[in-house]
């Protein structure tokens, strides 16, 4: 088992003919993901790489392919619309890779997607991978291996770093999920932790957080109150100066709220092993 995606995931790609969309579509197909269609307005009726049918609209794509998931690679100014189109077309699982989506756009996307009953992952996230089954997004397949550890992270390359070290240490993964670092995103730590808790194949979970906000603290309490499986964690940004924004991760510290120290303390108080360095995650998992 795995969470959110597996062998039954039937994916469409919004922006399939774009630079990023086409590159990663090929990567996903190569990994074994069932890519059943793509959307590029005006290219409806054509085929991508002579095999994947392209549609003008998501509604058309869903009607023709029975897709149950979508991944979005469209420019930031069009991403909000793409997410809402997907939700409106009834797709239950929406992954938005696009970086740079205006946060006010997301204040509208969030309630819309919720009203439609869809799950949104991202935006500004690397997507997710259930090793050996399906990958949706941009996480490099070769750094992962099937196993029974779940991983959830707000970061991209830092996730790769940790997953890679897990894989090298022989610790496989059920699913690795990058929730994205934007201030407003569709899926948070708790959503993923609850899914991992419910997944029979996941035995323990790694949670990688960042400075900014209070999601990690909320997640820590959730772990303490609701989870039976062991969780270990890491927080990036211990040396970040207060009040400055550390790039697109949207890590903002306002006053004392959201510092790395505060988050690490919340982890420890709630029984989550805290890695001092990314590599320490492996050791903490061994101790479980």
């Amino acid at each position: 088992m795995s969470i959110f995606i597996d062998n039954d995931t039937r994916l469409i790609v919004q922006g399939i003919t774009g630079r990023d969309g086409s590159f990663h579509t090929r990567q996903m197909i190569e990994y074994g993901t069932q890519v059943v269609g793509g959307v590029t307005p005006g290219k409806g009726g054509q085929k991508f790489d002579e095999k994947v049918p392209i549609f003008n609209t998501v509604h058309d794509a869903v009607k023709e392919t029975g897709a149950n998931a979508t991944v979005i690679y469209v420019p930031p100014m069009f991403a909000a619309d793409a997410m809402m189109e997907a939700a409106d077309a009834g797709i239950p699982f929406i992954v938005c890779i696009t970086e740079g989506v205006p946060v006010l756009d997301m204040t509208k996307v969030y309630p819309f997607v919720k009203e439609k009953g869809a799950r949104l992952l991202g935006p500004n996230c690397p997507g997710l991978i259930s090793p050996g089954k399906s990958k949706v997004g941009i996480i490099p397949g070769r750094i992962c291996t099937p196993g029974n550890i779940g991983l959830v992270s707000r970061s991209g390359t830092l996730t790769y770093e940790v997953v890679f070290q897990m894989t090298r240490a022989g610790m496989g993964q059920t699913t690795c999920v990058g929730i994205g670092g934007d201030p407003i995103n569709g899926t948070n730590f708790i959503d993923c932790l609850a899914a991992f808790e419910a997944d029979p194949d996941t035995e323990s979970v790694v949670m990688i957080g960042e400075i900014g906000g209070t999601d990690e603290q909320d997640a820590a309490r959730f772990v303490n109150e609701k989870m039976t499986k062991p969780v270990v964690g890491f927080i990036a940004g211990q040396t970040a100066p207060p009040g400055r924004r550390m790039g697109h991760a949207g890590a903002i510290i306002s006053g004392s709220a959201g510092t790395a120290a505060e988050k690490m303390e919340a982890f420890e108080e709630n029984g989550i092993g805290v890695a001092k360095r990314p590599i320490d995650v492996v050791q903490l998992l061994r101790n479980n």
Partner: protein
Amino acid sequence: MNIHEYQAKEIFRKAGIPIPPGEVATSAAEAEAIARKFGGTVVVKAQVHAGGRGKAGGVKLAKTPQEARDVAEKILGLTIKDLPVKKVLVTPAADIETEAYVGVIVDRASKRAVFMVSPAGGIDIEQVAAETPEKLMRYPVDPRYGLMPFEAMELGFFLYDDVKKARAAAKIMQQLYSAFVSSGGSLAEINPLVTTPAGDVVALDAKMVIDDNELDRYPAIAALRDESSEDPSEVDARNANLTFIKLDGNVGCVVNGAGLAMATMDLVKYYGGDPANFLDIGGSSNPEKVVNALRIITSDPNVKAILFNIFGGITRTDDVANGIVTATKQNPLKVPIVIRLTGTNEEIALKILKDNGFSAMTDMDEAVKKAVSLATGAAA
């Protein structure tokens, strides 16, 4: 993106918010002329992207045009939080009866724009939140409906018992929300919102931060950027599409991805070093970005060693290697460099580096340790 008080005031004014007149001066003589035009007492305010201007001596009253000149002279010579003051706003002094605070900010927790209002204005709102939280009202706005009249009235009554003032404040809050949303704001603030003895409600200060991601949508707002008011290296980095924040340490860091960049800085600290910067080259692997990154980092005289930490996913590590080679050919390095590369096209990258006289590593911890020891002068 930060904008100046006078720019935010112009946006607020267009939205209908009552704001006293004001003009910007870049010299003491100009300030004097403006003060003469307005007549009476004026306030001279430093236009700089930093809070606490008052405490830093950046806001002064002037009773005469000559005094305005003197005061402007002084303020234009200040440096507030490392930023030199290059402009002042001259505005007639207002008669103030009460001071309130009104702000709207996008909030992660509620996933909405949230109003924060307090009848205790004119001071730091964090202080109000900490010391007298009952005087601070937080009010999330449903983006599907906007700030509705009845909601604005509730906020207005939180500030003022008098219905006329409450109504005036309610109107201002609706105008502020509209300005905020239609400018792509991530923060908009009036501190203080004052009442005058005549019973008017007026915005005496204005602050706005624009979501960088909205700038493509609002060219007129994007054009407000004042690069002369920013740190030159950060301007340089932004123009090169890099996310860069200057710090005080001596290990220059070049990393792909914000999370990994922060983790790298943390690891520098962990091994006893001090990062000189946060620098994220982002997901794409254009060699030009690497060239720019090196140029910006090496322009900091504090940097004693450079650390590359690249985990290739979308980023092709051979592109990064090529960038390093190109950059160092153009401008030979004066400090040691430690390169850690792994992931996409790792073998090609390592060969390129080796062929050009660089050594490289694949382990993050080892690389950080080495960079720290090089920067501190200890043996690697």
